């Protein structure tokens, strides 16, 4: 992978991609999951990535987060190009600078809620900012469920634990992959509201993939992906404006 573009300016964008491409297979069977995506995510903002199934939105997220590698182009977090990192440095980055919230199977089933929240810190052999973690736990409303295992928590509670875990290490950016996909709408709204609060009150940066216009409306900005490309974007969206936009692009 050749990195020809200059490094991004620190402070402006928390993460981004430059001409990112990801191909699967060869010849006629080749699938272009990402086909030249260039995008930056501002610090302290909540960005939603939308697009139909197979549009490449999840692949983009995985590559941005350093979970997957590109065929060509580059992704960065802060002022670091991910391609320049060794597996060990990438692991370190995931532990300290990145938080994750997935659609399902977010927690280690054998650990309690408390242990799950502190897991990234424990893996690094750190205790972290105890006051901050307590604040986060209080904010997600889990103080009385800390000793419970994931199997003893509801879906919404599990997802709140996951969000708390993502926040615990004060990462530069949190990536969320369909975080409300497995939840009913009330619980989903609760999680999204909390994520939006984290952005507003703690200045956290969040990038979320979703196909739900209602969920996306919690973000400051929506980016539309189709066929591996950025096909549009919108600031301060509402569910209606998103739906309009999607109709306009013939989704």
């Amino acid at each position, binding site marked *: 992978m050749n990195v020809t573009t200059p490094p991004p300016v620190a402070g402006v964008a928390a993460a981004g991609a430059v001409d990112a491409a990801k191909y699967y297979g060869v010849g006629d069977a080749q699938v272009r999951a990402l086909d030249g995506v260039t995008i930056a995510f501002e610090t302290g903002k909540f960005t939603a990535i939308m697009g139909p199934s197979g549009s490449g939105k999840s692949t983009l997220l995985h590559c941005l987060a350093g979970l997957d590698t590109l065929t060509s182009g580059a992704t960065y977090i802060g002022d670091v190009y991910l391609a320049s990192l060794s597996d060990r440095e990438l692991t370190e980055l995931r532990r300290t600078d990145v938080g994750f919230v*997935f*659609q399902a199977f977010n927690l280690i089933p*054998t650990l309690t809620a408390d242990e799950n929240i502190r897991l990234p810190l424990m893996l690094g052999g750190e205790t972290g900012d105890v006051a901050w973690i307590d604040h986060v736990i209080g904010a997600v409303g889990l103080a009385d469920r800390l000793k419970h295992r994931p199997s003893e928590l509801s879906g919404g509670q599990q997802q709140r634990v996951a969000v708390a875990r993502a926040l615990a290490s004060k990462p530069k950016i949190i990536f969320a992959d369909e975080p409300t996909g497995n939840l009913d709408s009330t619980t989903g709204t609760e999680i999204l509201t909390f994520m939006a609060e984290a952005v507003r009150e703690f200045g956290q940066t969040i990038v979320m993939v979703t196909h739900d216009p209602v969920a996306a409306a919690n973000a400051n900005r929506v980016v539309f992906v189709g066929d591996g490309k950025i096909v549009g974007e919108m600031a301060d969206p509402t569910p209606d404006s998103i739906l309009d936009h999607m109709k306009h692009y013939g989704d």
Partner: protein
Amino acid sequence: MSSHSTALLARKSIRARLGRTIAIAIAVMAGVSFVVGSFVLADSLRAVFDDLFAELSEDVDLEVRTAQEFDGDSAREPIEVALADELRAVDGVAIVEPALTRYAQLVDSDGDAVSPQGGPTLGVSWAGDDGLQGVTVKEGEPPQGPGELAIDKATAKRESLAVGDTVTYLTDTGSHQGTISALIGLGSGDSFGGAAIVALDVDTALDRFGAGTKADALDIKIADGADVIAVQRAIEDVLPERAEVITGEQLAEEQADEVNSFVDQFGIGLLVFAFITAFVSAFIINNVFQITIGQRLRELALLRAVGASGKQVRRMITVEALILGIIATLLGIGGGVLVARLLVAGFNAAGAGFPSPDTILAVRTIVMAALVGIGITMLSVVVPARRAARIPPVAAMRPEVGFTALRTRRLVIGTVITALGAVLFVVGLFARPGGTFGLIASAGGGGLLLFIGVASVSSTIASPVTRAIGWPVEKAFKTPGALARQNVARAPRRTSSSAAALMIGVALVSAAAVFASSLRATFVDTLENAVTADYIVTDESFQGLSPIVAETLAAVPELQAVTPVRGIAAQVGGDTKAFGAINADAFEKLVNPDLRSGEIAGLGLNEALIGVDPAADLDLAVGDTFDVTYQNGVSGQLTVAGIYGDATFGNWLIGLDTLESVSEAPARDFFIIGKLADDVDAQRGDVAVEAAMEPFPQANVQTNAEFRKSQEAQINQLLIIISMLLFFAIAIAVLGISITLALGVFERTREIGLLRAVGMSRRQTRRSVRWEAVIVSLFGAVVGVVLGTFLGIVLSLAVPDDVISELAFSPIIVVLILIGAVLAGLIAAVYPSLKASNMDVLQAIATE
């Protein structure tokens, strides 16, 4: 990086997956218990015998006896009693007592021989209260003169004999009468280790036991304050040629070593099976770890995603295994002590008569337990842990990516290991590089590699073979049967690893079966063709038979030929050989040894019959002479009178007269063979022989057919013992199948839920899982039988021809093994099938 988090995760994981953890722990524990049990048993028994012999020779400071030229099995020559007077004159010597142990058989008032259960019947000399042999008087006074004797109190009790009774006893010189003057015991015990004892005063013993002027040894007690070593030196100065003096401690050690060499062999035998069990456990543990890592794929990937390094994941899995290994080892050590006790009880129930020992847990035992227990666990987890570390973080969202990472190039490696194992095994058995050690290392190592390789490669044939095995199951059980068949065939890799442990157990049983059948076939062949004797008299006491037994038998008019077979160790060209001594004229009528040249009958003094192999090696022909040195130091020359091909009776035979001319050691017969006179029918012969052997309970008379049957029974018994010792390994194998199946059921939760939702009954669900288990275990058994038969054939071919010359295969055993495999499958299926059928349908479907 934090080891704290790895340890926490590992600990939590162990606790959360308790069932799986317990199953692995049981597998480790079983292996460790068996290893520890073998060591504890051998150590404890050894300590008992060390103490026993130390106690027996407690009063003996020094012993004078004849020297032997080299190590061998011959009895020691007796020593002149007259030497005792010279010894008494040596400074520091307090007491010199001739010691004599010979054959003596008590006869009860009805004229029946008194037979101790399993023990020998011995006559000993006893100097009375001053005696040095640790004999204690329980009742009465020590015997004095030819008219008195003492017997052990245990026999007296059993036969209701008391002091003052007159009894008859047989010795090498014939029948004698005497009055019981005392009941005696050894130390505080009433018995002499199970032997029936007749004790006479020294002069009477020398006379009645036919020892003449010579005793077995001269026991010495030194004066108070004298120095043992100084006295030993002083005695050495007065000793004649070919005599030696040793300390009481050396004597005790020697005697204990003799018994302990059996204990050691027994211990090593057990240990071999213990290691097999541990090896099988390793397979199970490896398989379980392998499967669970597949199941925990998303969890491990999630750890990677939130910032765990590959190294941390590997360490977590390894620490999990380590904790498990340590706990299981500790439990296994406890279990081992129990196993040792059970083994003693078991062998005693079978009539072994082991003393009940104190439990000795040596440091070496604990180290071995840790090596085996922790070692096999850690070895088993190396590959799974490395694979787990390769799981990419993105697998948390796309599990299919993770499964690709878990795949290995198993076939290539497996084939290489199989080939290497087979070559090592064959080379080790036939070429034997580096002697016995090379044989064991090469053949044993090759065998292990072969098992590992076959277990790995067998996945390639798992699909077609299990489809074939499953065909009748599908026919019989319709849909559940078809599901079982497909489930087995669709995961060939898992099927083969689940079946691997059983495969090893079955392979070992089959190899032993082929070996035993071949041994039996060869033996039967020999008895039918080479041995034409009608009667075979064997010795049940392991002391050897007194010559009067053979003399009595030779006097039976219904028999035309009788010869005893005695032995002496001798060196020819620097190598120690076992020589047999026979009555050649009779031998010719009793045995057909495939004579190649010369004559058997008329074998004269200092003439020998030798086998074709040594004849070729030493380039000897009939009429040639060769030098020989007997174990007692006597040298001489033997002339070859005949060369023969059948080595059933060994490769070196001399006449009884030659043996008597070179050795004064008391004659003892290994066995006696006899043939009916031409005009006597078998029935009349049986009655006559039985009657003649009546006074000799330790002589076991069998007809040729009976002897063959009893030998076959012994071979069968050996096979049964081997199978029983493999029971542990097979039980673990069944446990392994059960765990794998339970894990499989867990993985297929959704699928089973769906089947139940669309109308499969609980019973059908159970049936499906049950037959899946049966197909898997049958697969293991089939591969095991094939591999084991190969191993058995190679093993049989490697053994010298005079032990195994023809191959035999027992179809009955194969059928038994297959029936056993079906049962094993049914047992293994109990838990997984219940788990599958009790699943909540709705929950199962909702499971991701």
